[in-house]
């Protein structure tokens, strides 16, 4: 049982002589409860891989399955993304005119969930992350680490079991960065599948499996299977 599965995925930008092969036939699976880190130098294809895994971009060839569904055959991809996948990015995280709780409620309200229920769900996930006291604050009233935790809460609200994180520790100091990884790890241990992109070895090391990407191909992996990690 895998949450996300990429099979021989390639992505080419442009055509002919100027074509850029961002990914060259990458295969990867993430199971529930597993934290997989993708690491590699700038331009190695890390973010392209993450965007393909979350259905934000379509592969030139190969297939992507989320919860067993081939994304190429999904009619309403936006709905599937909203319901099954949570995203955390380095920046562009929170809407500044909404409070922390309202930010977390937003994807559920877009999904047609009533405002009262959406707020209940938001408060539950915020409480799990020790953020209940900050629920009514606006993003600019929060520290960098708190903002990122709210973004993770938003990524996890509802029944989403796949979390994609692109450099979520961005400009945070190492101690706050460790706290973010602690949180991602805890969500994994509670059954979520997490795919983390980072160029920082110290954060990649929190993963069950670290995959090294270079020039669009997987060059190596620590291959720590779920069984041997437990």
């Amino acid at each position, binding site marked *: 049982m895998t949450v996300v599965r990429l099979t021989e995925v390639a992505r080419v930008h442009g055509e002919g002589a100027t074509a850029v092969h961002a990914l060259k036939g990458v295969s990867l699976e993430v199971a529930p409860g597993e934290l997989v880190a993708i690491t590699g130098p700038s331009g190695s294809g890390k973010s392209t891989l993450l965007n393909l895994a979350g259905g934000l971009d379509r592969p030139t060839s190969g297939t992507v399955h989320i919860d067993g569904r081939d994304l190429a055959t999904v009619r309403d991809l936006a709905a599937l993304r909203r319901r099954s996948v949570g995203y955390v990015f380095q920046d562009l995280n929170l809407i500044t005119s909404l409070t922390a709780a309202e930010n977390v409620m937003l994807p559920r309200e877009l999904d047609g969930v009533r405002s009262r229920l959406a707020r209940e769900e938001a408060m539950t996930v915020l409480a799990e992350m020790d953020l209940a006291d900050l629920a009514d604050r606006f993003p600019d009233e929060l520290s960098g680490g708190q903002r990122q935790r709210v973004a993770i809460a938003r990524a996890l609200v509802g029944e989403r079991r796949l979390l994609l994180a692109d450099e979520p520790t961005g400009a945070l100091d190492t101690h706050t960065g460790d706290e973010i990884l602690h949180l991602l*790890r805890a969500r994994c241990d509670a059954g979520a599948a997490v795919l983390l992109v980072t160029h920082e*070895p*110290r954060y*990649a*090391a929190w*993963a069950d499996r*670290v995959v090294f990407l270079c020039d669009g191909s997987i060059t*190596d992996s*620590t291959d*720590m299977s779920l069984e041997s990690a437990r």
Partner: protein
Amino acid sequence: MHTAYAYLVGMSIRHGLLALLSVGPRHGYQLRVEFEASTGATWPLNIGQVYTTLSRMERDGLVEQGESDEHGRVVYAITAAGRAEMARWFSTPVAQSDRPRDELVIKLAMAVAAKEVDVVEVIRRQRTATMRTLQQLTRAKRAAMEGAAQRLVLDSMIFQAEAEQRWLDHCEAVLKEER
């Protein structure tokens, strides 16, 4: 082991024991347990090392024997000279040049010099191995909930492994341009 390095390690055990004794008198076994607990079990001591170090410190007037406890174990206490020595140690920064030569650095330099060695492959293997070490250290840190001293020791090892990893990435990028 490099002799000067062994000497320095010996010095750190001595100062470590002084720091523990500054809290109050202890017997040898107790010192060993507390030493290992504070260093996150990354630096195992045998009881022989503890007693040898204590008797040298006694000779140098840094500690003195007190009364035996109910089990007949000798209790040691720090002296005024011992406290002065400990204060001197904490107020002196550690010199960078005291580290032993790094086999990995030599290996990579030689791999470049040897021409027919696939340096990129050497780098990749090392990087994966170092990442596994980093994963183990991170798991140990997550498990070490009690004791800030322990976590900070593990953090130091994590920063060192991370520095090695970054250096390997750097080597790969530099060699890519050279080719």
